[in-house]
């Protein structure tokens, strides 16, 4: 009886042990699987910096957002990818002794640029930097009062040559007049409406002493005939810019005028 009872007890214990082992194994498996799942999720969050932001970023990137209704305007005026030199030489110190300027000085070959207040004004500077640098006045938005203009979606700029080469600095007011009249007479709607943007077109023309423009020529075409023609017509509409300054000794000045066109 006793032995029989003991044997029976042994049998009953082994069965429970098997259940226990199975349950422990299952629990261990659960722990491992859970740890793998939870661990991997935690690792991802941690790697992304944690918090809801990381998830937010991931999700937002998948949402098809509507396009920005306002088109961003490119401010780069040239095709060059160079670094825009946004300001002229600003850091010239205050000149402590400036020679009294000769107000009626005649045109002479320019000896050397003197550090006067005039040259602190934004003016096209000779390119001294590496080729990759956009010269001042040719990059970015309008930044010089006498070198560029904006007319609607269009932009232009110009350089003067005449006399000793300092016409632009001596008679800045006249350059401004030329700037204003050309921009007033350039009619954007003459450019083919299908054209969104075009290469720069360069014109050259002369201004005689009476202020009349002549010899208008396309120096470099934009590749868009209607833009070239509209630029030429702008000049043809102008009867006079007003007589050249009386102090100017030359018989004419030559102007190079460029137009950039971008339809808004």
């Amino acid at each position, binding site marked *: 009886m006793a032995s029989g009872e003991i044997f029976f007890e042994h049998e009953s214990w082994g069965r429970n042990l098997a259940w226990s082992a199975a349950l422990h194994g299952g629990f261990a498996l659960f722990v491992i699987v859970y740890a793998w799942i939870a661990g991997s999720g935690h690792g991802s969050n941690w790697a992304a910096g944690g918090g*809801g932001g990381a998830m937010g970023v991931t999700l937002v990137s998948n949402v098809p957002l509507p396009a920005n209704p306002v088109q961003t305007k490119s401010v780069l005026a040239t095709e060059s990818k160079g670094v825009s030199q946004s300001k002229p030489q600003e850091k010239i110190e205050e000149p402590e002794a400036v020679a009294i300027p000769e107000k009626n000085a005649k045109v002479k070959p320019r000896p050397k640029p003197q550090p006067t207040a005039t040259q602190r*004004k934004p003016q096209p500077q000779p390119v001294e930097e590496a080729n990759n640098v956009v010269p001042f006045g040719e990059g970015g938005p309008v930044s010089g009062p006498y070198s560029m203009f*904006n007319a609607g979606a269009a932009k232009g700029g110009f350089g003067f040559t005449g006399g000793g080469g300092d016409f632009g600095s001596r008679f*800045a007011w006249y350059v*401004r007049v030329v700037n204003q009249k050309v921009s007033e007479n350039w009619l954007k709607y003459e450019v083919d409406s299908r054209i969104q943007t075009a290469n720069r077109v360069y014109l050259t023309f002369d201004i005689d002493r009476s202020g009349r423009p002549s010899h208008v020529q396309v120096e470099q075409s934009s590749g868009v005939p209607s833009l070239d023609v509209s630029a030429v017509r702008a000049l043809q509409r102008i009867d006079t*810019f*007003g007589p050249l300054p009386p102090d100017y000794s030359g018989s004419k000045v030559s102007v190079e005028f460029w137009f950039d066109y971008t339809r808004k």
Partner: protein
Amino acid sequence: MNLKFCSNTTSYKSLVRPALAAALFLLTALPIFGQDWIKTGTGLGVEKIRIAVPDFKAANLDPRNTELLKTFNDTLWNDLNNAGIFDMVSKSFYPLGQIGSPADVKFESWSGAPPNAAMLVFGNLGSAGSTLTVQGWLYDVKNVASPQVLGKQYADAPTTQAARVIAHKFADEIIFRLGGGVNGIAETQIYYVRGASGHKEIWAMDYDGANQHPVTTLGTISLSPHISPDGSRMAFSSFTGSGWEIRMFSFDLNRIVSFPRYGGTNLTPAWSPDGSRLAFSSSRAGNSEIYVVDQSGGNLHRVTSSKGHDVSPGWNRKTGSEIAFVSGRTGLPQIYTMGADGTNVQRMTDQGYAVSPAWSPNGQFLVFSWMRHYGAGAPGSEDIYIMDIASKQWVQLTHDGGRNDFPSWAPDGRHIVFQSNRSGSLQIWTMLATGTNQKQITASGANSEPDWSWK
């Protein structure tokens, strides 16, 4: 879950914000698209020249200087302010101390803040005995090396009228230099019709409304004055015993001179830009049609023939080879253009009720009066419009109600004079050709049909 909820909120926000922005954009954009305004873009975006005009300094201690200086300074300021090409620097920004001569100019205090002026006008005025002397300079203050753009000296009698004339002349010199060779209008005149009890006479005044005075005293009804390009004669239409006839006034003789009578109703004479021909409308053959005669009234020939009335001719002031006119050939009056010989008729307006065309001095634009929506239920306002002839794009210049009519160009092509009843009575107004700077220049009586002199 928490994370997911947060991220969902973020994504909703991400959707809602652009949607709101788009809605706001549309809401703000709608009023613009809802109106019939088209900007041609000409002349837009061009900066005005920032100019400082401090009061001129007394050159001596003569007691008459005070009044003369006031007249001179006010006139000069107004002329430059009215020019339409300057941004006048407020006098409150000026540095202390008067400037009478170049030696007084401190460049940095004018070119720097607060004035930030590009140009400076200064000078002195002095009366001695029977002479008034004015010295004036125009300086580019940002160009210290060679600042002088203009230096002038004037001498006249020491009267306020002379001071006014000198100020006009000096202002016109400045405008000529800085406005690209276009003469200023400070010395121009405006001719107009002034109503009195039972009759209407032709009057004249300075461009700013000063010096209003009668030209004709016929005691009848005279309309549509048109000054000749050289300023020596004025054609107008006047009611005579035989009907409406073209009359001619000579400023050289200061009286009416003879001019042929054509019979019928003859109205709205207009000079060709070379002063050799006149166009006008006449009903001598029944219908009102456009006729052209030479300056003495001879060599009459008809240039239009249509079923409707053709009236109000206006020459292309640059070429003299085209005429704009009003025709009712398709019903309501519309603006048309044609060659001076009547060929190549082109319709310019396509709706409403359009009258009073005037061709700009550069030949590029027409200005006219237009009721774009005409008929029952339409607003009924009559406004001044400018049209680019090549593209037929137009811009509405007046928006302030009332009836605006009879526009006429100033010789500089920057200003327009017109009549309007917006102030309660019929008066003469001026504005820039952009529609800005509208000013009433007559105040009393009934004044209408202005015509700006050619120079």
